Structures are given as C-alpha cells and as structure tokens.
C-alpha cells in the first residue's frame, strides 16, 4: 500500500463510476423475499463475497500485473496480448459470467470506471469496455497501487454496494447495516489476500453463485426497477 489517498479515492462510493446504479443482485433477492432483514442480508453478503467477490478480487489483482506490463511496453493497444494479458483476463471473465445481464452490468461499470480513471490518471492500453474487475486493475495500476490493493477494493465493493442498496430497498437501519459490514471486515481482508495469492499463482478462481446468475435474468425482465442490476 504505497498510495493511500489514491486507494481511498478508488474505493470511495462517491467515485463517479456508476456503482450506485447497481445492487449486486440484492434488488432481485429482496423482491424474491430472500433478503428481508440484517440477518438475511449478512448471509447474502457472505455468499457474494465468497463467490463473485473472490473472483472480482483475483481478476482485479491479475489486471494490475497485466496493466503494469502493458504500460511498460509489454503489449500493443487493442491486441497482441497473450491470454495472460488484459484481453485474456477479459475473455476469462466472460467465461466466468454465464448470465448475459451480468456481463452487460460488469462491462457498463467497467466503462464508467475507465472514464473516471482516465480523468484521474494515465491508464494503460485496455479493451474498450472491459469487465469491471479488469478496469479496476487498470485504474489501480495507473494510481500506482499494487495487486493486493486492487483485490482489497474489489472485495470491499462486492459487499458495500449491496449493503447500501439494502438500506435503500428495505429501509434497514443504516447503523445496523454498517455493523454487519464491520463484522464482515475480517472475511473481506481474508478474501482479498486469498485472491491476490491465487492471481499471483495464475490460479484464477471461478466460484459461482447460481442464484445471482439466475435472478439477474429475472431482474432484467422487470419493467420498473430501482437498480440496473
């Protein structure tokens, strides 16, 4: 951790990167009656952290390494990158995201994050609308953060986004929800550390949450919804 203020800027929910428009599957879980209170919210967050949170954290970490190599001249814009590069990571995330709605949501957030990142730092060459974890790695590398920092932001955001959506959707006590997040902090740190180690070893996780995949498609058919995903 060598650029603490940059790290805070990147993790801040006020970063204009569109994250507030997404509930991470929570809106669908609330509509289905699966999340109703802080207890069921905690279960939702634990499952999300262990699945899509772990995957996002590992890919963000791997993308820092790939973006650092690309910035050092290891790759040409738009191609020429082996499967370990940013294009390869982006393809590998497609393979880990069977739901078309979640692929769209991830790329929309990736594009928004790239836009915000470009306004702050000089970014490495990258696919045009990358998956969000790839964009996070690219932006983190540009901010001189390391792979572990990017994993840490990804793990953190995998629970804070749905938690704040829960306050808005269910009218839960924001203090109680913040308490849930504080009790998940250790799990979040562990997930980020595990994700960083797996990315460094080239062992990218593929943990999936079937309900998030299925209900993302249910949610995408609604005519009226508060969140984009």
């Amino acid at each position, binding site marked *: 951790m060598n650029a603490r203020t940059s790290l805070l800027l990147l993790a801040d929910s006020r970063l204009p990167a569109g994250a507030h428009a997404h509930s991470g*599957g929570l809106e669908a*879980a609330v509509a*289905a009656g*699966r*999340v109703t209170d802080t207890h*069921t919210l*905690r*279960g*939702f*967050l*634990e*499952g*999300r*952290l*262990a*699945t899509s949170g772990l995957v996002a954290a590992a890919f963000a970490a791997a993308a820092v390494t790939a973006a650092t190599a690309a910035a050092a001249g290891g790759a040409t814009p738009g191609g020429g990158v082996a499967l370990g590069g940013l294009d390869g990571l982006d*393809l*590998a995330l*497609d*393979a*880990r*995201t*069977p*739901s*078309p*709605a979640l*692929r769209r949501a991830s790329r929309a957030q990736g594009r928004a994050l790239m836009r915000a990142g470009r306004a702050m730092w000089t970014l490495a060459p990258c696919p045009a609308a990358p998956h969000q974890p790839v964009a996070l790695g690219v932006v983190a590398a540009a901010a001189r953060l390391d792979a572990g920092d990017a994993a840490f932001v990804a793990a953190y955001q995998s629970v804070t986004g749905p938690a704040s959506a829960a306050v808005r959707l269910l009218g839960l006590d924001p203090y109680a929800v913040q308490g849930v997040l504080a009790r998940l902090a250790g*799990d979040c740190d562990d997930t980020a550390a595990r994700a960083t180690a797996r990315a460094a070893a080239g062992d*990218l*996780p*593929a*943990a*999936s*949450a*079937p*309900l*998030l*995949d*299925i*209900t993302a*498609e*249910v949610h*995408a*058919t609604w005519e009226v919804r508060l969140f984009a995903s």
Partner: protein
Amino acid sequence: MRAHALIVAEADPAGRTRLVDVRGEVPLLPRRTGSRADGGAVVHLVGGAAGPLGGDELTFHLEVGEGASLEVRSVAATIVYPGNGTSRLAVTANVATGGTLHWLPEPLIATAGCVHIGTSTVDIADGGRVRWRDELVCGRHGEDPGDARLGLSVRYGGKPLLEHEFAVGPSAPGWSAAAVLGGAGAIGSLLEVDPDLKPEDPRVLGPASAVLPLAGPGRLTLSLLQQA
C-alpha cells in the same frame, strides 16, 4: 483407493462410433450398453463399490474423435461419503471437430461430513459438440451436506468458454443463503455447446431456473430445486 478409467471413441468409415479403448477400475467401471439413433455409442458407469470415500483419487478420461458420438451415463447416483481426507474425481475430455459428447450422469449426493472435489476439464475443438450435465444434491433426506466443490472448465477452439464452480457445505461461506442457493437443496446445470446455435435471448424458466446464452457458442441452463 485410486482408480482410472478411459473411453476412446472413434467413427468408422460408415459413420458409426467404435469404442477403440474402454478401461476401468473399481469403482469406475464403464460398460457399453447400447447405441444412439445417430450411430453413437452409449456407455454406462456401473457402480463397482460404494463411494467415492474420503481419500479416493479417481480419474476418468474421455476421447471423442472426429465424427464420433459418445453418450456417458451412470446407473445410479454417486454418493460421496466421508473418509480419510478429501475424495477427488477428475474428469477430462477431448472432443474433436465433428465429435459429440453427451455427459449425462446421475446426480452426485454430498453426505454429511464428506469432503469432495470434482473437476471436469473439457477441451472442444472448433466444430465439436457437447452436452454436459452436473447435478449436486446437498445431503440425503434431512441431512446437511459436507463440503463439496464441483468445477467445470470448458475451452472451445482453444479459448475459455465456461469456468464455473459450485461449492456447498460448512467451508463455503454463505452457500445456503440468499446469493448462492437460497435454501435450495439441489443444483442442476446443463451446458450445451454447439457451433450451430443461433444467437438467442436468455430465458427465465422459473424463479430459480434460467437459460443463459454464453459469450461463446453455448448456453448454460441453471436450476435450483428444493429437496424432495
């Protein structure tokens, strides 16, 4: 217990599928049981012993040649029991151009206290076809499951098509909660890979079931079921 099984399927000049090599060891015993309408071979895995048990290391390799068609089934559910350590079942498959593999085994039942890792690695050449079904039941009736992790890794034409892993049991945080299984007792997935699939929209089949078109040439149907 360590065991290895192998099936090599090739097409003869008349387009019928010949099994040029079928080998197995208890508890993985493949037996040719019939033919498909398309001339393909049907093979059943017959149970040679209980298990897998903790500590078992099982590997199974399938090779489907150009133009060959192979359907693999099992005669009964696979029941994973605790034992001495982790049980592992690693399935690898290569499907050549014009080859078709149907992997349609009975469900895997993860009993209390088991520790099981199943990995399936499928490499499909351009123009190959696959139907791959996995069903995981979380414990026998009224039983909480042990730890079971099932991974499916599929490449098509050398590129990743699907990387998917389910984990249930006490070591998988939040597995039965609202994001992962939502209290369901079983997960079913069916991957269909076919270069002739037309682009399609996702379809919602029910509150916990959907057909998901992949970014590559295939679709994944995911369904969660309450346990009977």
